[in-house]
């Protein structure tokens, strides 16, 4: 990873990504395709990639229900998934 990489944490794990990477892409890379559980407990991940479906929603820097596909990774960001 080149020097301009961005450091953030996903569920407490420190990771580095290229600038411009969305939080959804970072979670797919480091955590895998399951982002959350649905109301009946089935696994879910991003669907639309454009802020419409809310399947990729995560807690980012303490704010719940953020669409991770529309959020760019920032240095020091804390991302929390909903995977048990």
């Amino acid at each position, binding site marked *: 990873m080149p020097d301009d990489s961005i450091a953030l944490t996903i569920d407490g794990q420190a990771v580095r990504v290229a600038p411009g990477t969305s939080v959804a892409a970072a979670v*797919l*890379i480091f955590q*895998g395709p399951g982002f959350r559980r*649905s109301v009946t407990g089935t696994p*879910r991940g*991003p669907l639309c990639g454009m802020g419409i*479906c809310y399947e990729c929603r995560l807690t980012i820097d303490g704010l719940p229900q953020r669409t991770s596909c529309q959020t760019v990774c920032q240095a020091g960001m804390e991302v929390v998934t909903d995977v048990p």
Partner: protein
Amino acid sequence: MFLDVSKNRSFDVLVIGGGPAGMAATVTASGEGRKVGLVDDNPDLGGQIWRGERKKPSSAEARVVFEELQKSTFEALPGTRIVGLVRPGTLLAEASGSLVELSYQSLILATGARELFLPFPGWTLPNVMGAGGLQALAKSGLPIAGKSVVVAGSGPLLLAVAAHLKKKGAILRGIFEQAPLSKLVKFGLGLWTEPSKISQAIDLRWQIGAVRYRAGAWPVEAVGGEVLRSVKLTDGKKVWSVDCDYLACGFGLVPNLELPAILGCSIGPGGTIVDEWQQTTVENVYCAGEATGVGGLDLSLFEGKIAGHAAASGRPDKARFLLNYRDKARRFARALDESFALRDELRHLAKADTIVCRCEDVPAGALAGRTSWVDAKLQTRCGMGPCQGRICGAATSFLHGWERGSVRPPIFPVGVENLAEVYSNSASSPV
């Protein structure tokens, strides 16, 4: 979430949506010397097709528009989402967790379109994504090289996505278009009246190379436990299975009409109704691009320019020549639409236990006896989750013919307590 008055803004012309239509509108309106604001909920301008391309345009068309925008004077408000109407002339927006009010004299709605997703067994599995959905994630940093991808569904977007993924090193396991070959051939012939489109189509086929493009085939099941492993497809006669890492699947596009609807604009069967100068049925509110009806890039650019002129300075003669170009692009869009009409079999893919509303996990069986969208909402909670019916509303409109009915603000989820506060404040403040 709280209202941050220090960030309130007021504009002569406010444009909502930073895709091709909104960008073209911004360039023209600012060229007329008006104070223009351009809002988009993504981190950067470009919309769906030019997502993330501001610094590195991938086509000549994109380069031209980004350069024009660069030379224009306007205020860009990326990462900002319009969630409601405070009062006529003022919209409520959300940006990184706080609420702001944006006021305007003229408003241009260029909210674009989203993909149509239809339920079939397994479609909720992680790694089953939209065609444009997977493309968007690949554009925002998801490494796709070496991954095997099945592209399926309908429409010209499948080809554009396949070409993009292939270029990024994905292994394409086939492109499956539900429309029958006979209709596509007709569309292919129709292209001869549009020379620029032919070269585009040839170019895409060339980029896709030896990958199989199969018409008259569609997905019937996505298979996997915690994550997608394979896809079952059919041509109506036999069913076969293809292993893959991703299924990129969309059944065409549907316009984003929530914002025009809460502003009181009349909506027709294809999208927001506009007059020849792109004005909606609400005075000083214009609409351009996919939100007036899905029609592709050229149409979005023409409509955006016309709306920009009209919103900034009425109906200038110098912009009248654009109307012809727009009407020609509209005719092309209509032909396209007919060629990719969705087949009836797609209405019957979901089994009784297949989830239709993904937010509330409402299965197809629970919707079987319902008579309307409102009935379904009240009886099953269909469409009551965070996406507010954007996915299942479009799906049930195709499956059951249900109209979505009235849209209520906020059109995207925001902290409700604070919203009540904003609306009660604004009701008492002078307009």
